[in-house]
């Protein structure tokens, strides 16, 4: 292995050394992100998917009204993904399912950030006993067998009849996955707070009389936002996989509300005869996750160019 610096990807450090404006940092990130072909392809595919899901109501078919004359039609021009056991257009259902799956993904990001970031920030900023307690809690959550607890929680909540979380709605599933995936954010944020709180500009702010809240929110947090964004992107992928997995097992989003997971699950029964029912929802899950992962990878390299040197050109 001949590893020289010449093999490393060239790295841009913002534009012309002007560090005065945040905009130039953003521009630098965008410039590096643009060089990652996978990330660009992923962004385009994801944007198309999102647009299709948003405009799903424009479809001429209704996702829930059955049409017994058109059961089990293979893919054709009028039904690009075929029809299901009740004669419903699969493409329409897949797009409506995509809304649910992507929504769950966003919800999970929201929930895990709003638990993980405060926990990590408080632990990293104050240190001491608070840090020990918060990190013990984090470690305890990390020792839970995630998938098994997910199954248990959603099996339990499936029977609950509270208004908002009734019958495993989007909110319930997002909540359940979210409270089992905030730990990575807590660890990341804590780590970056531990380093940044020792820097001179933080001491300067404190000397000027800045309150703790101000230092945390205005000075340290913006500087640790990079890894949070990267992790949030990757989290979207995990959330989609977990939601579809749960729905596949029957513990997630409950039919008739379509989600990629339960479409796949329903297709199982007769899928050797009607394979398109399983293949299209599965392909959508695959496409969504691979694009999200490529975007996350591109963002990671773009946000933190030093990591690229460390990892010696990891794509």
């Amino acid at each position, binding site marked *: *292995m001949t*590893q020289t610096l010449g*093999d490393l990807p060239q790295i841009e450090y913002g534009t012309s050394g002007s560090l005065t404006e945040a905009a130039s940092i953003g521009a630098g990130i965008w410039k590096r992100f643009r060089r990652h072909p*996978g990330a660009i392809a992923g962004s385009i595919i994801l944007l198309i998917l999102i647009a299709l899901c948003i405009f799903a109501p424009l479809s001429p078919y209704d996702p829930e009204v059955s049409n017994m004359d058109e059961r089990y039609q293979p893919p054709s021009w009028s039904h690009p993904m075929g029809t299901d056991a009740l004669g419903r257009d699969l493409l329409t259902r897949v797009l409506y399912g995509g809304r649910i799956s992507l929504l769950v993904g966003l919800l999970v990001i929201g929930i895990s950030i709003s638990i993980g970031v405060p926990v990590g920030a408080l632990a990293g900023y104050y240190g001491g006993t608070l840090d020990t307690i918060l990190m013990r809690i984090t*470690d*305890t959550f990390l*020792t*839970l*067998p995630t*998938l*098994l*607890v997910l*199954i*248990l*929680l959603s*099996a*339990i909540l499936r*029977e*609950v*009849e509270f208004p908002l979380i009734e019958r495993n709605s989007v909110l319930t599933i997002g909540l359940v996955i979210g409270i089992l995936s905030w730990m990575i954010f807590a660890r990341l944020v804590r780590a970056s707070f531990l380093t940044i709180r020792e820097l001179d500009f933080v001491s300067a702010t404190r000397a000027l009389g800045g309150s703790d809240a101000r230092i945390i929110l205005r000075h340290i947090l913006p500087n640790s936002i990079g890894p949070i964004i990267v992790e949030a992107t990757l989290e979207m*992928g995990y959330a989609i*996989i977990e939601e*579809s*997995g749960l729905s*596949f*097992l*029957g*513990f997630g989003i409950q039919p008739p509300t379509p989600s990629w997971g339960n479409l*796949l699950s329903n*297709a*199982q029964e007769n*899928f*050797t005869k009607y*394979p398109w029912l*399983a*293949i299209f929802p*599965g392909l959508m*899950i*695959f496409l969504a*996750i*691979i694009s999200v*992962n*490529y975007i996350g*990878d591109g963002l990671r390299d773009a946000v933190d160019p030093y990591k690229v040197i*460390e*990892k*010696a*050109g*990891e*794509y």
Partner: protein
Amino acid sequence: MFTYIARRLLQTVVLLFLLSIFLFALVNLAPGGPLAGQGRSRQIRPEKIEILKRQFGLDKPLPTQYLIWLVGNDWMRVDTDGDGIEESFGTRKGILRGDFGFSYRTRQPVLEEIGQRLPNTVLLMTITLFIGVLIAIPVGIVSAIRQYSKFDITVTTLSFAGQAIPEFFLGLVLILIFYAWLKNPWTGEPLLPSGGMVSLNVSGPAVWDRIKHLILPVITGALGWIAWYSRFLRSSMLEVANKDYLRTARAKGLPNWMVLYKHALRNALIPLITMLAIDLPTIFGGAVFVETLFSWPGMGRLYFTAAVDRDYPVLLAILIMGAAAIIFSNLLADVLYSFLDPRVRYD
């Protein structure tokens, strides 16, 4: 080192204790309680439910129930026939003495249920993990050595794909291809079976039949491991590539293969081995998706059916054992790491 391990073990005990309270509470605070599933699956009269509750000890306050679950009830009088009078000593020994109670579904001891399933899961998962690592190591090495070659770029793309394809979808596609579409040209039967461990109509050890049943589940499970481990090894090979000791090795005139295998690979494998140790609990927990999809009678499927039927003693037992397995394998990873890399010391 010994004080370190002793301290970690002590922490483990505390952590497991806290987790047991947490998981017990979680399971028992479920709406309807543990008997909710009973009322749903079969028609049971309300007064029968009351009797059952007394028999299972579910009429007692939660802390007492937890205590009984933990240390048993052979020191206290219980109501065995459910008539409201506590007449004789209990028979439960508690999980601390290895008694995980009875499955609500089959009325068998939970440990027996697990004992029947565990070997199947261990068989499937060891083969899966072994094959995964066996393929991932050479792939990872070559793509690190030939960084940015066609091979490397192909493998990187494939590993992204491998990590993005959900197990349950991959399994379905494989069943479609090898069970529904491809037929054995001589007998006209499906090329590979779509589920189970062994065909019903064969007797004896039936090794070839068992292997045929293993192929699809193993491929389904192994693909993710191959993608993950080959990528992991590639980046840890590239990480040691810049280290001074490699430059020294090369400077003293060692042939390239020796630098690679004696110096680079050995050091790059250290994180891989610790990663393997961290991933070991999956051997115990099994793969819920692979096992449900291929009707493999293992732990994952046991957990799945227990969750469907709300078989709480089984769920609790598997959860606690799963958490314990994760904690111990993390400890094992740390100890292994300091053993393999003597620069790392814990005290």
